[in-house]
């Protein structure tokens, strides 16, 4: 394995011919993609096509059978991988928010920097309050997850990830469980992030949103990338019949 320094003219995430199976079920069948620093990429595709599995592999929540995933030069598919190193670089937001129900919104945000990064509590709290403001939840610092709406919980989850100061954010259908009214508030938060230059990999069914913020769109079906391109060409000039069928159903 090469240990030379990663520089930001190289892809920040580099996925190369990744294969992943659960038992006999092959879910990823040779996926490759490169993401540059500051880019926003969207992964779309039918349910079960392996989108979640793919982005979970990026922060080693799933392991892979073969291929390579490099995050800032760090090989994820390495038996001796220091997972903490990886997870400091990569934040993840889930469809079901997965907040810690016994902690308030503020505590949820503060927990990892204090426990994992051993940062100073007062400093972390100041930063956490800033993040609460950033996701527009002032006044909800002391609320428990069970007292917040889905959209509010999801914004706390985003702030919680950001508290670790990641370089890359993964979003796995983060609006899929939300009421239509609250979808927008979460999308606005993500858009703010993207505009600040955060590298984002999103799995989403919000096509309008993808078109608006993505630099590049990947369409996956049954474990392969069928087609990809920048939104302008992707949405208007999709060639593969599977892509066209999917888009016609969803748009």
């Amino acid at each position, binding site marked *: 394995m090469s240990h030379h320094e990663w520089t930001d003219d190289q892809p920040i995430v580099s996925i190369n011919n990744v294969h992943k199976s659960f038992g006999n079920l092959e879910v990823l069948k040779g996926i490759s993609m490169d993401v540059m620093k500051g880019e926003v990429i969207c992964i779309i595709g039918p349910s079960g096509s392996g989108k979640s599995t793919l982005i979970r592999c990026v*922060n080693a*929540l799933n392991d892979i059978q073969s291929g390579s995933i490099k995050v800032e030069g760090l090989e994820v598919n390495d038996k001796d991988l220091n*997972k*903490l190193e990886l*997870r*400091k670089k*990569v*934040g*993840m937001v*889930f469809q*079901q928010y*997965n*907040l*810690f*129900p*016994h902690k308030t919104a503020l505590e949820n945000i503060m*927990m*990892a920097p204090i*426990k*994992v*990064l051993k940062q100073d509590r007062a400093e972390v709290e100041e930063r956490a309050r800033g993040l609460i403001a950033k996701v527009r939840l002032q006044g909800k610092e002391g609320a*428990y*997850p*069970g*007292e*917040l709406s889905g959209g509010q919980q999801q914004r706390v*989850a985003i702030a*919680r*990830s950001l508290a*670790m100061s990641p370089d890359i954010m993964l979003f796995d259908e983060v609006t899929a469980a939300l009421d239509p009214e609250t979808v927008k508030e979460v999308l606005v938060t993500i858009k703010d992030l993207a505009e600040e230059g955060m590298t984002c990999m999103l799995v989403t069914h919000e096509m309008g949103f993808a078109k608006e913020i993505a630099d590049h769109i990947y369409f996956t079906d049954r474990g392969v990338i069928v087609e990809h391109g920048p939104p302008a060409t992707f949405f208007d000039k999709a060639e593969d019949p599977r892509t066209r069928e999917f888009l016609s159903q969803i748009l």
Partner: protein
Amino acid sequence: MLEAFTEFFRQLADDYPRWNFIFFHEPRQWARIVKGLQHTIVLSFACVIFSVIIGVVGAWMQSSPSVWIRRFVQGYIQFFRNTPPFVQLLFFYFALGQFTPAVTGPDGWTQVPLISNIGWAIISLSFFAGAFNVEIFRSGIEAVPESTQEAASALGFSRLQTYTDIVLPLAFRVSLPALNNNLVNLVKTTTQAIAIAVPELLYQSVSIWSDYPSAQYPTMILLFFSFIFLVGILVFGMSRWERSMRIPGYGG
């Protein structure tokens, strides 16, 4: 006032020979009860603490990636849960007790065992109740969604940090009713320490009624009330604790 109280029970014993509440009118018997109560409280308190620790550690070990550690914990549970605690006490004290070293006693010349009979009772009963606590916590842990733990991993929490900071606090809340039951049983089971002559409340009571058969039923009644009181304190404490841990908007 106290005079009238003792006089009443002395009179009662004269009038009804089977109802001799001897500990209420004879200071030496009262002293035995107090001593018994002290031992029962020490035993209960120590066993509650240690059995909960055993439960927490055992449940952690049960989620270990190592199959040998998991089998070891499973074997421990099977043994202590499926055999009588009375026999466990005897075995610990007599069979294992002979292997523990002796030390010189406080008088400077007698040899006393390093672990006293009370020590063995605490060890034995803690492992007995701990076996149930492991199972209780495990089912609490199973109620914590995998996805919550995954979120912790994604934030860089280690397996141990995830357990202590996220899984355990949530599992505890789920486990409390079952834990409550087991600890109540544990407090009552401390009476079995009589098997190895720990001078706890049952031991003292039996001594009293062997010496004074007329005091048998009254002493039993005292035993009932003492345990209702002790268990009452435990249950009260546990429900206070449960309330203090309740999370707004979460769970039932």
